[in-house]
């Protein structure tokens, strides 16, 4: 079927199988994912290079704690390789593949989801399956929460292990805005009468793309075409209304839409400076965390749009050529443990949302996850339960490209 991408796909995959020397799924070191205790033994003394976004100091400090714990308990040295963009990691794996480096990869574990995962999976650049063999995998109750086995509608096939949850939330400064708009349409109305008070990050920044997806989901009323691979015709049909919306919205935004921040953090800064009164984030606890550090004033409130917002899970994957696969798996399993997940969800440490199914835990374990409490700056769990599913990953790059096409040369 026709796709928006340039037309090499089938030939490409054929060549990949024929031209490249060895299949990447068997590795030099014998890895038996079923024998977990043997893996633990193998992992001892290994150094695991974990490529993860380095732009958030809270995450960095949390990973320092993880490194210490891994050192003490499993004799694994964790190296957090800070990347500005997961795409860089993908580039690196591709470069290694180009040069025929199939066993000495420089990356052992990476934090990934969405189109990055899709690209890696499609090009057979991942090791596995391994994720469901982890002792801690049962904690996520994948039967009840199918999103643990699928990444933007693409099946994970055990190639990646869940790590954190995210959900799109909006937050506003109640000093300047008391009754925030509750739907995408309402945002346009409000922004028109209050120009310069809102903006969103520029796609292809993750948060910006998410805003587009949220908008198109609401405007098209969750059109089913969005959950299937994108085609030219469907794309045209579904997004016409979206572009009309954005054409009307942009002139009312901050800087009249001639400038967009390029990340969630910059957006947050704009609110902290009082430039805007409405913003969005992908971590439900982001506003809360920022109020605690003084970055945002305590008049900030988080909320979820009435019709629900997009939520997803982000994962950990292992490249096909990783040198320390055993260590990587032990690390991923540890990050999935109750202890690590509880600490991660604590706003004092990382402030993320856990992937573990809390209701299935016993009372004492459940308590460890109660650190957010009823902080005004956070959205309530009830609000957060209003979730929308992510569209098929092929829609993300399509939307991004179209946005860039229309709006990057004003």
């Amino acid at each position, binding site marked *: 079927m026709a796709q928006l991408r340039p037309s090499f796909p089938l030939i490409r995959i054929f060549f990949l199988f024929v031209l490249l020397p060895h299949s990447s799924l068997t590795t030099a070191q014998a890895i038996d994912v079923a024998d977990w205790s043997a893996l633990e033994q193998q992992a001892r003394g290994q150094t695991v290079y974990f490529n993860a976004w380095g732009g958030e100091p809270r995450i960095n400090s949390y990973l320092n704690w993880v490194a210490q714990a891994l050192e003490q308990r499993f004799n694994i040295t964790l190296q957090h390789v800070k990347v*500005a963009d997961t795409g860089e990691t993908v580039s690196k794996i591709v470069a290694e593949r180009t040069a025929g480096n199939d066993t000495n990869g420089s990356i052992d574990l990476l934090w990934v989801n969405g189109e990055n995962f899709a690209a890696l999976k499609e090009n057979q650049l991942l090791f596995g399956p391994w994720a469901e063999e982890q002792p801690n995998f049962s904690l996520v109750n994948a039967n009840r929460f199918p999103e643990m086995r699928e990444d933007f509608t693409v099946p994970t096939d055990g190639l990646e292990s869940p790590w954190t949850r995210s959900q799109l939330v909006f937050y506003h400064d109640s000093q300047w805005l008391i009754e925030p708009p509750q739907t995408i349409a309402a945002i346009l109305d409000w922004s028109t009468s209050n120009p310069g008070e809102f903006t969103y990050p520029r796609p292809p920044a993750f948060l910006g793309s998410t805003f587009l997806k949220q908008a198109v989901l609401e405007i098209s009323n969750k059109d089913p075409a969005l959950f299937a691979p994108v085609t030219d015709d469907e794309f045209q049909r579904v997004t016409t209304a979206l572009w009309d919306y954005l054409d009307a919205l942009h002139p009312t935004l901050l800087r009249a839409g001639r*400038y967009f921040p390029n990340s969630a953090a910059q957006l947050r800064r704009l609110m902290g400076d009082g430039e805007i009164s409405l913003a969005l984030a992908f971590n439900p606890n982001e506003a809360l965390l920022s109020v605690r550090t*003084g970055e945002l004033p305590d008049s900030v409130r988080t909320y979820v749009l009435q019709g629900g917002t997009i939520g997803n899970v982000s994962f950990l994957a292992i490249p096909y050529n990783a040198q320390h696969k055993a260590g990587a798996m032990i690390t991923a399993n540890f990050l999935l443990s109750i202890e690590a997940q509880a600490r991660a969800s604590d706003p004092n440490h990382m402030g993320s949302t856990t992937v573990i199914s809390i209701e299935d835990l016993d009372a004492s374990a459940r308590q460890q996850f109660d650190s957010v409490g009823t902080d005004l700056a956070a959205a309530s769990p009830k609000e957060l339960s209003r979730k929308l599913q992510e569209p098929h990953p092929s829609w993300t790059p399509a939307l991004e490209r179209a946005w860039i096409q229309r709006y990057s040369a004003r």
Partner: protein
Amino acid sequence: MLRWASHSLIFLLAAPILLGTLIASLPAFGYFPPLGSSEFSLEAWRELFEVPGLTRSILISLISGILTPLISLTLVFLYLASATGSKLDLWIRRLVSPLLSFPHAAAAFGLAFLIAPSGLLSRVISPGLTGWERPPDILIVNDTWGLSLLFGLVVKEVPFLLLMSLAALPQLQPRHRVEVARTLGYRPTIGWLKVIAPSLYPLVRLPVIAVIVFACATVDVALILGPTLPPTLSVRVLSWFNDPDLNLRFLAAAGALLQLGVSLTAIAIWLALEKLVGLFWRIWMAAGNRNTGEGLAFAIGRSAMPIMLMVIAGSLLALLTNAFSGSWRYPSALPSSWTIQHWANSLSDLSIPFFNTVLISVSSTLLALIVVVATLESERQSGKAKSTAMWLLYLPLLIPQLVFLFGIIVLTEFAGWQANLGLVIFGHLLFVLPYVFLSLSEAYRQLDPRWTQVASTLGASPLKSFWRIRIPLLLAPCLTAGAIGMAISISLFLPTQLLGAGRITTITTEAVALTSGASRNLISVWAIVQLSLPIVGFMMALFIPKFVWRNRSGMMDTR
């Protein structure tokens, strides 16, 4: 022996760049087996020219490539014309080298934090002068036509060009010439412009070209200050390289070649401009007017540097306040609370990058110094002026980093090399070399040849006179060149990031990783650490000679 060694060294250094460029450009024409394409095709170019806003991106890159050196050079020349010998000049000369060491990323951040609508400047004048309770909705930083970018680049390049000019001036005997002009009735500033500028320009032409290429192809500064809709060409190429959609690799390669083309075009336009200006200059020189324009030239020349210094000081202040501020709501001019929490939080994260930064910069600079000194010495001994191999030294400055770095990575992968410190140091060496050469060559060549003659009449072999006479006499210029080299290495981002596979972290790579997500406070902390390192280098370059030669008044001449 010496000459052969230094020539082969230069070829060894230039080869990876040329090879890398070649390998990286293959995908531009469709050749990239891992993605299944091994036939020549122009598909990538077709795609490239359909990219929206490409013309604007190219234009902005081109315009910054030409306006930056134009404005910077004009300011430098006007300054030299109006202020040489004055008290202001003494101060500026002392500050030039340290100013140069302000890494461009840190400088860009500081500037952004200064002039933004919610920046330091705006806070200071609000609400008092402006009545603003919330920041004004004006597009300053990241403006559509790249004016902030231009501003940031000019602030960065003026010290560089000034340093290069100061190094080249002494051989022109500026004081004598201007005096002669004055006795012929010319006002001093006009006189300088008519008798010195035409001779000085050819001596700084190469640094100017380096400025053109940098301004055209910079990624760091453009990311921070440059326009976003659309971004400059180099920023777009980087984003295509990093895009998870692997098909964009072809586009990126084509874009990189385009960037190379744009840089070369900018250089060509500049050279044409040069001829044109040269023509008018000659007419002006012969026309004989001695007074017109003196006042204006003098005013601009004298005020340019102080204004620049104030801007830099303001940027530094913006970084400092942000690094120590607790809660700081607009429009307060100063933070309402101060804290060292940001520093405490960063301390443990700083240690390894700090160590790596020092190790890499010292190693690459030492190696560069050895190569440069060997080259200069062999040139001196062979008696030949300049050989063509020298041009290879400047390759890293003339080809966009992105282009050949990607190719080098593929090369190292083929060789089975893992990312390691040695590779990163080599990558840094490539960039440090031209700057060390540019900064040391004049002093080296200008050293009175009679010193070595005296030494040889006293029976000293060339080796003995080199180590015991030449090197000690050139200690101060060598240290300064070393300080500049270290400053360059410290500010490098792409080479460390790509050649080190992200495993080797330096202050700069960490700081840039924080850009996409961190608070102003944290970025300021890292920016300050980043810029304080070169300052240490320059302090050493300044004070070590003073200490070593403390009892030698003959060594204390103003350099």
